[in-house]
C-alpha cells in the first residue's frame, strides 16, 4: 500500500493549469513556507479519513442495492408468496400482458400504463431530440457569443423550474388554450399536451449534453470540411453530427430517462384515465391517431401518484403498484448501462 502521498494523485487534471500563479497566494505567500506538522497522529488521521471517504462512496453503492432490494421485496410480492403478503399471488402474464386494470374487481393489467409511459415519452422525444440536438449545434458552432450566453441561461432556468410549476402552467395555460383553439372547447388533456410539456422539461438535458458533444469534437473536422468547400450547414449535417453521434444518442437516452420518470407535471395534465385503451377502442373516430392524442390517459408514474395513497400496504393492489415502481427502476438501470455501451462505441 503506497504510504507516500504522491503515489495516487489523479492524473485527470489536464484541464487545470490556468491561473496557477494567481492562486498560489492562498497558502500564504508572505509568511513564507507554511509549517505542515507530520506527527504520528496526522498519519493516523490520514488513514482514517481515507476510510471515511471510502465509507461515503460505499454508502452510495449500498443505496443503489438498497433501493433495488426494498422495491423488490414489495414489488415481487405481487408474483411470489413472500412473508407478510396479504394479497393474491398473480401471474406475470395477467399483469404485464393484460390491458384490463380494475383493482376493485381484482384485475391488474398494467399494459395501459406501460403503453402510456412509452407513448408520452416517445412523443416528447420526437420533439425534444431534434430540437435539442439542433440547439446544441447552434450553441456550439453557430451562435455569436452573446446568444450563446443567453441560451445557456435560458436552459439553466428551464431545467431549474420545478415539475409542479410546469404542471400548473400546463393546467392553467396550455390546456385551455388548446381546447379553445383546436378542440371546440372539448377537454384537451392527454398525450399531446403532456408530451409538449415533457419536451420542454427534457430539452435542457439534451441541449447541454449535445453542446458538450459538439464542443469536444476536434476543430480540424470543422475546418477540414470548410476547406473542402462545405457550407456551414453541410459541415454540420454531413460531418459534425455524424462524428458526434454516439454522444448525441447518449444525450437522447438520458433525456428519455428523465421523461419516463417524470411524475407530477404529467399527472397534472394527462387526465389520469387507466381505461384509455378501452376508451380508444370503442371510439369510431375517423382519425384514431389524432383522437389518441387528446384522450385522457395514464402512465406508470401518474398512476403511482394517483393511487398509491389510497391502497393498504401488503394488498394485491399495493403490491402491483410497487411492481410498477420496480419496473421504472430497472428501466433506469438499463438506460444507464445503454449509455455506457454507447460511450464504449465512441472510444473504439
Amino acid at each position: 500500500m503506497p504510504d507516500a502521498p504522491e503515489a495516487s494523485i489523479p492524473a485527470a487534471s489536464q484541464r487545470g493549469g490556468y491561473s496557477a500563479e494567481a492562486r498560489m497566494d492562498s497558502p500564504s505567500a508572505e509568511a513564507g513556507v507554511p509549517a505542515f506538522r507530520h506527527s504520528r497522529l496526522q498519519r493516523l488521521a490520514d488513514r482514517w479519513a481515507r476510510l471515511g471517504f471510502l465509507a461515503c462512496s460505499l454508502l452510495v453503492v449500498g443505496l443503489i442495492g438498497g433501493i433495488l432490494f426494498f422495491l423488490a421485496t414489495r414489488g415481487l410480492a405481487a408474483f411470489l408468496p413472500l412473508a407478510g403478503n396479504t394479497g393474491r399471488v398473480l401471474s406475470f402474464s395477467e399483469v404485464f400482458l393484460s390491458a384490463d386494470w380494475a383493482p376493485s374487481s381484482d384485475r391488474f393489467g398494467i399494459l395501459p400504463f406501460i403503453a402510456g409511459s412509452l407513448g408520452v415519452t416517445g412523443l416528447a422525444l420526437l420533439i425534444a431530440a431534434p430540437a435539442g440536438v439542433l440547439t446544441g449545434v447552434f450553441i456550439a458552432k453557430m451562435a455569436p457569443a452573446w446568444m450563446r450566453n443567453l441560451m445557456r441561461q435560458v436552459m439553466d432556468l428551464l431545467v431549474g423550474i420545478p415539475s409542479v410549476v410546469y404542471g400548473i402552467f400546463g393546467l392553467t395555460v396550455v390546456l385551455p388554450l388548446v381546447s379553445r383553439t383546436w378542440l371546440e372547447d372539448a377537454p384537451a388533456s392527454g398525450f399531446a399536451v403532456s408530451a409538449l410539456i415533457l419536451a420542454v422539461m427534457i430539452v435542457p438535458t439534451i441541449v447541454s449534453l449535445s453542446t458538450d458533444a459538439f464542443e469536444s469534437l476536434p476543430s480540424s473536422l470543422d475546418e477540414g470540411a470548410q476547406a473542402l468547400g462545405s457550407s456551414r450547414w453541410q459541415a454540420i449535417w454531413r460531418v459534425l453530427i455524424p462524428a458526434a453521434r454516439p454522444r448525441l444518442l447518449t444525450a437522447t437516452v438520458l433525456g428519455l430517462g428523465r421523461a419516463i420518470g417524470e411524475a407530477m407535471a404529467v399527472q397534472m395534465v394527462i387526465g389520469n384515465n387507466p381505461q384509455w385503451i378501452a376508451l380508444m377502442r370503442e371510439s369510431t373516430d375517423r382519425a384514431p391517431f389524432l383522437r389518441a392524442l387528446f384522450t385522457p390517459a395514464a402512465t406508470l408514474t401518474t398512476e403511482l401518484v394517483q393511487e398509491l395513497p389510497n391502497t393498504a400496504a401488503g394488498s394485491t393492489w399495493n403490491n402491483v403498484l410497487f411492481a410498477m415502481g420496480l419496473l421504472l427502476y430497472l428501466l433506469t438501470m438499463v438506460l444507464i448501462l445503454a449509455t455506457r455501451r454507447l460511450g464504449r462505441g465512441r472510444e473504439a
Partner: protein
Amino acid sequence: MNAAVPVFRRSRTSKAVDRLMRGVLWAIALLFVAVLILFVGAILKQGWPVLNLGFLTKMPETLDAGGGIKPQIFNSIYLVMLSLAISLPVGLGAGIYMAAYAGQGRALRFLRLCIETLAATPSIVLALFGMIVFVQAMGWSFSIRSGALTLALLNIPIITRVTEVSLLAVPQELREASYGLGATKLQTIFKVALPYAATGILTGLVLTAGRAFGESAILVFTAGTNASAQFPDFRLTVPGETLSVHLWYVTSDGTLPDAREIAAGTAAVMILVLLALNLLVRLVDRTIRRRTR
C-alpha cells in the same frame, strides 16, 4: 468516421439550403427563449394579484377561501436545509474519494456508474424507497425526518459529482507544491484543494438547494400533504407540507374554493425564489471570476 472524404457541392440549392437551415436553427433557439419568457410571464401574471403580505404570512385554510402559505414556506426552507445537512457530508466524502483516492481503474468506473444511476433514478422511485424504509419500516410515518432523509438521496449524486469535478479542476501544480512542502494527503485536500474548489462546490450546492426546493414527488409520499398547525414547528416527527407539495395538493384535491388562486400565488413565489437563487449563482460566479483573473 468513414475514411471517405465527403464531396461538397456548391450550388444555388446548397446555398439556399444553408441559408434556410441557419434561419431554422436561429428560430428554434429563439423559440426556447420565447417559451421561457412566456412561461415565467404567465406564472407571475397569474400569481401577482394573490401575492401580498397576508398571503405570505397567514396560516392556510382547510375549507374556506383566503388562506395563506406561511407554514409551507417554513417547511420548504427547513426541509431543504435538513436534507442538505444530511447529504453534504456524504456527497463531499464520496466526491473527495472519487477525485483523490479511487485512482483511474475499475473502482472509479463502478462508482461513477452508481452515482449516475442514482442521479438518473426517477424521484417517484426514490419516494417509494423512502416510503418503504422511513415511513413504514422505521414507523416514522409522514414526517419531516422521513422527508429530509429521502430528499437527501436526491441531493447526494449532484453534490458528489460537483465535488469531484471541482476537485479535478484544481491545478496539478498546487497539489504538487503542497506535497513538496511536506503536507500529507489529508492536509493537501483540506488546506489546498478544497479551498480552491470551494466556489465550484458552493455554486453546485445552491443549484442542489434549488432542485430540492422544487421537488414534490418525493415529499408527497414521505413528508405528507399536511402542515403543522403550530408555527414555527421545528419537530422532526410532524408532517411537513412544502410549497411545491401544497401547489400540487390544492390543485388536485379541490376542496378549497380558491384553490386556483392559491396555486397561482404559490407558483409565483416558487418562480421568484428560483430566479433569486439563479441570480445568486451568477453573481457569485462573476465575482469569483473577476477576482481570479
